[in-house]
């Protein structure tokens, strides 16, 4: 019985990671490394809170959260793609600005929960299946989108469209893409911004469905986990969902352990997700060196490298 409840929690907990991670997947596929997810989640969250407070409904607030993050994402992208600042430093700066700003703005809302939130949307028939039904088919719409529509959409975009092919080319070899007439700068700006907006969506979701009360450092490391999960997923959409679910499962495990009084300290349980994520990154790399290679786990060829077109 509890395991299905655990599954439910896992799915919910993993949603933020799926959203932020999918956005980062797109960003990295065009060759940009955005370390600022933690800050962007915070921005999306605080924007959603403020929007609700101003009387907007949950969906409007959700969009506001995405837009706010998109704005910062665009600033980040401009700095990194046009001015070509160091992507690591700029990404960290984004974390600081995002976390600082969101904590500051959210301060006034601590302790007052959002009333008008996302409600779960049970899928007719399927939600009535005993045990499994409530666990899988009684979530908010965003969850369904994140776990099903999003990976499908991204996979379709990347592998089945001309535009997606160009996108991948930009990430692999921007010089070649440029020579083929693809607008490298435009692509990178566009998808880095879109990726950032997804992270904001994650933050907004956090406030509107998962933990509707603002707290300091609302992202709680999920932005960093998303980055790690993208690596684990080898930049493939469906593996990303799997990795996020795994992370969610760890969090869920923590809740159960507390409830069931397994006697494990809450601290240890909180560590679990990070340790597991770490393992997910390190082990495949180690195995690869010993010849065991699951599939191509090579990063997009130009990741984190600014592109300078040869002078015209």
């Amino acid at each position, binding site marked *: 019985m509890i395991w299905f409840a655990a599954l439910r929690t896992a799915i919910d907990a993993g949603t933020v990671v799926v959203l932020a991670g999918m956005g980062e997947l797109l960003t990295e596929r065009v060759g940009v490394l955005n370390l600022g997810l933690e800050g962007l989640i915070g921005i999306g969250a605080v924007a959603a809170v403020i929007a609700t407070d101003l009387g907007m409904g949950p969906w409007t607030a959700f969009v506001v959260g995405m837009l706010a993050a998109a704005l910062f994402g665009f600033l980040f992208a401009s700095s990194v793609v046009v001015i070509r600042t160091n992507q690591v430093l700029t990404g960290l700066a984004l974390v600081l600005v995002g976390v*600082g700003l969101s904590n500051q703005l959210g301060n006034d809302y601590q302790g007052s929960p959002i009333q008008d939130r996302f409600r779960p949307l049970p899928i007719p028939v399927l939600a009535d299946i005993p045990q499994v039904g409530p666990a899988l088919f009684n979530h908010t719409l965003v969850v369904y989108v994140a776990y099903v529509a999003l990976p499908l959409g991204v996979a379709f975009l990347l592998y089945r469209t001309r535009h997606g092919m160009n996108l991948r080319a930009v990430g692999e070899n921007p010089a070649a893409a440029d020579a083929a007439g693809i607008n490298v700068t435009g692509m990178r700006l566009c998808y880095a911004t879109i990726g950032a907006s997804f992270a904001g969506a994650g933050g907004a979701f956090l406030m509107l469905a998962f933990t509707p009360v603002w707290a300091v450092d609302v992202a709680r490391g999920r932005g960093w986990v998303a980055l790690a999960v993208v690596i684990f997923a080898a930049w493939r959409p469906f593996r990303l969902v799997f990795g996020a679910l795994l992370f969610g499962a760890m969090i869920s495990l923590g809740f159960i352990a507390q409830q069931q009084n397994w006697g494990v300290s809450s601290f240890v349980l909180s*560590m679990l997700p990070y340790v597991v994520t770490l393992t997910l990154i390190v082990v495949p790399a180690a195995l690869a060196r010993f010849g065991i290679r699951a599939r191509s786990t090579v990063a997009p060829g130009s990741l984190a490298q600014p592109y300078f077109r040869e002078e015209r």
Partner: protein
Amino acid sequence: MSAARWAGTEGRRLRLERRLLANPRRAAILRVIGAAVALLVSGLILELTGRSAPFLAGEVVDSTFGSRFGLEETALIATPILLAAIAVAIPLRMRLWNIGVEGQFYMGAWASAGVGIFLDAPRPVLLISMAAAGALGGAAWILLPAIARAWWGVNEIITTLLLNFVAILWVGWFSIDIWRDRAAAVIQATPLVGATLPTFPGATILHVGFVLPFVLAVVFWYVFRGTRWGYEVDMAGGNPRAAEFAGINVRRRIVTVMLLSGAIGGLAGMVHLSGATFRLQQTISSSYGLSGFIVAALAGASFIGVVAGGVFIALLLHSGIALQGAGLSVYIVVAVYGLVLVGIAVGEVAARYRLVFGSPARAGSPAEERAPP
């Protein structure tokens, strides 16, 4: 001959020219300018949101420089930051980013707390043991990321970062739960450690650990300027393949450099524990590790720059604390940090460009093959 060739053609032009490498001194200056501009912009924004920047600035100067205590407090903050910055600067010379210095700080503090609480020994012995424990704790914490990077090519930013969270939780666990001081009911921390660092004669809170970062800065300045090892590390960082060609074992250098970094990070934790907080508590670090990282980025792996930058950031942090009294929250300081980092990053880029007056030389001159093929 060139002049004659160009007579009568369009004259000299002003161009923005990009080079592959920047003059290091220029880069440092521009980074500082970038940081300064960011601060100015922050001040402007604060003004616009109704807080008087000059007033705040005044508060800052007052609380920091206005009193002896303020200076001591700043120095107290500067110590762990500078140590963390040195810890980060060393691997940075090999283009390795140790953002896990925060976690190594925590683990160093934890290890030395363990020794300090449970070992019974005369003060000097205990302090030395604690220092050793701190260094070992920090080094052990970075070991996995170091190996993962050197042998399996795993990005050290993510690995060390994830371990930060684990370390903070680990220390929280021990300080609030396992090693909790049951006697002092109110405090959520461990008992006092058995030995503490003495303060300077005449000082209230500033401990002798304050000299350590300066000593280390000088030591490593020399190491990277005048020793074989430093030369090898620099070469390996500049081009690992060429370094291998020269017989330098790059993998071993990566691990060594990272372990050294972790050790110093751990030592920073020990110093702060035994000099400032005296107990192990969950909040033993106010993002000193992160600040140290930013300082190292500002300094560009120059140890003189690290010292200067560390002092600057300590002032900034202390100002943040002081400004909380004036109604400004610490979060704003964090956001300002972020802007400063952006300013640094932009300065870094600007260093590679220069405005040039010039007329092109003739083809066939020795520089010709620099033209793209």
